[in-house]
């Protein structure tokens, strides 16, 4: 009978590391959801008031009070910023810190351009805040949007500084992803404003 040699027992694969808690991503998702619901409430009031006014045969937003072009420019700028913020997410996923920082800075610059455009829009709008219910709601909604945009810029700035300091990598990219989630939600809000207020009037 052939000698049998005892072979060493098969080594079990190493115990998998527990998944890293995605705390910042989930927290940002919850907070962003709450902000979106706030805007849902604002839009609900706007749509209800507009429907009631039109049903009563009243004018909602006076003809010529809101120009189309500035709003369209803002939409185009924000669409570009969605591309650049996604560029930042892809760059850090490939451990390309330099391009991630560059993309975040470009996104922030585009956001700053939108701030400037909105300020011009407010100056140009022929709607004093206490002129009518429509004027009040337009100012409240666009003002809330500006607040969300400024919060997004602060978030981007924090994340950009941290990325520049080397705190993010392909394995630790939650900060950039969280900023991208909030930024995308902000652009979604503006899309609804653009369509419901500036185009539909």
């Amino acid at each position, binding site marked *: 009978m052939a000698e049998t040699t005892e072979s060493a027992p098969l080594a079990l694969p190493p115990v998998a590391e527990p998944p890293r808690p995605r705390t*910042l991503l989930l*927290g940002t998702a919850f907070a962003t959801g*709450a902000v979106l619901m*706030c805007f849902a409430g604002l839009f*609900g009031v706007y749509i209800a008031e507009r429907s009631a006014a039109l049903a009563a045969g009243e004018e909602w937003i006076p003809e010529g009070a809101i120009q189309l072009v500035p709003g369209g420019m803002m939409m185009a700028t924000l669409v570009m910023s969605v591309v650049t913020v996604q560029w930042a997410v892809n760059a850090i996923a490939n451990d390309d810190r330099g391009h991630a920082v560059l993309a975040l800075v470009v996104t922030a610059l585009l956001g700053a351009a939108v701030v400037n455009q909105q300020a011009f829009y407010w100056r140009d709008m022929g709607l004093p*805040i206490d002129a009518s219910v429509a004027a*009040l709601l337009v100012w*409240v909604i666009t003002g809330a949007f500006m607040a969300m945009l400024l919060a997004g810029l602060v978030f981007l700035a924090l994340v950009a500084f941290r990325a520049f300091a080397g705190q993010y990598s392909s394995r630790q990219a939650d900060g950039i992803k969280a900023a991208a989630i909030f930024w995308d939600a902000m652009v979604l809000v503006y899309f609804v404003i653009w369509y419901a207020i500036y185009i539909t009037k």
Partner: protein
Amino acid sequence: MTATEAPPSAVAPAAEAQPAAQSAWLYDLVTTADHKVVGRLYMGFSLLFLVAVAALGALVGVEGFSTSELDLFASLDAVSQASALYQLGLAFLVVVPFFLGLAIAVVPLQLGSPAVAFPRAAAASFWVWLVAGGIMVASWAADGGLGGTVEGTNSDAVALSVASLIALLAALLLGAVCVATSVMAIRPAGMSVDRVPLFSFTSLVSASVLLLSIPVVVADLLIAYVDLRGRPPVAFGVEDAIFGEIRWAVTSPQVFLYALPALGVVGDIVAVTARGRQRNYGAMLVALGAFGFLSFGAFAQSAVTGAGRLDVTEEFTYLAFGIAIIVPVLMAVGGWADSLRRGGRSIRASVPFSAAVVVILLLLAAAAASVVRSIDGFDLVGTAADLGVADLALWTGVAGAVAGFTFWGPKLSGRHLPAVAATGVIGLTLVGALLVAVPNVVAGFIKDVDEYADTLDALRVVSGIGAVVLAVGAVLVFTAMLLETFGRGRRAGDDPWGGLTLEWATTSPPPAGNFAEPVGEVASPYPLLDQRERDQEEGR
């Protein structure tokens, strides 16, 4: 260390500790990010506000004893403002923040976690809530209360009330983000969402629905504030209208959301009392989730459904929500009854269990009242029955808060609440809540006010007596809390109730980091029960 974690506390050298100790406690208290301290601060100040709100409710109730003249308030306008503060205060100064504080303190312990998610944000949430709540009460006192009229209020004070209410709600939302993120992101290995303890699960559901519904209140208040500051107000900022625009937040179905965590408290207490697992755990989770879904009331916001627009209170969805709420309640109560039945002779009655029974009774009453209110033929929507249902739901929440306080208080402070005070509070809450709410539901049936004037007067007197009873109970619970906080209660062991979940596996009070060793993999919602059963098996 990331930005979401608090820095570890530096251990001061013994030689320097003594002189700095006395002045350091306040600094430590204000700057703490320890979730247990933040949670207890939330609970403590919520109970303080409970005393004020209950006293206000008692004053309004006693004022209602006589309708021919005003005895306690200077004007009808003042009565309206006080009534609005009572409703808003009970929800956002008492029930919601108390359960938020309880969740911040207890949920990380139940999840075997060393801390809550975003501990500094949780601390910031408390301080902003406290300051905003104080400003809101002060502005109300300066004739700035919502619910008043243009002639009877101070416009600047009303604007301050609205602004402080916005800040207060934003703070509660921040706390809700911390709790929801904790349950979703920080769980031990093996604890999937369907193995999370019932209180943690209801905290997740209520935090999530709060994040979906309270921002709509913030939106309404934002519109009102901007309009109020642009003189003269166009529509939403008119003082008469503001409370009407947010009243949906303190009426059915939204008001049931604030009582949801009480169901989780009862679920954990019943399992411990019965000394066994909750059978059909998945069905229980579905019932609690359905309760949260049916409590979402943002679709009924008044600005969308007001005069001349869709009357949502006549829509099938609104009425169906009001009736369907009883289904998950009955499912939950049935599940608890089954647990207790199987517990049999091993059941140990305790103060928390007595409080849990009161919660169940009030919850059934609230759900039944909601069903009656929603029946189209009774025509009760928009009557005093609204207040009756809201009172039952909110005081169910208060009873749940008392139950949670008596159950987890020994874990957090190392001391039991004085049993006499706790039992007294439980009894007074049950009696007072029924006396306050049921007359309002009955009053809703009375359409001919002149013919039944005497009956309405009698109902008002009963309701007022109930409000006084609740105020006495509120003072008792606050006193009990103070006694427990300052070390007068009986010392509690690490596991005074024979707990089944992870929080009972550590010392009372828990150390920094909560657990001496990392928590291992769990296989069910009751890890300690699993461990006991394993030990018994090995012992055989």
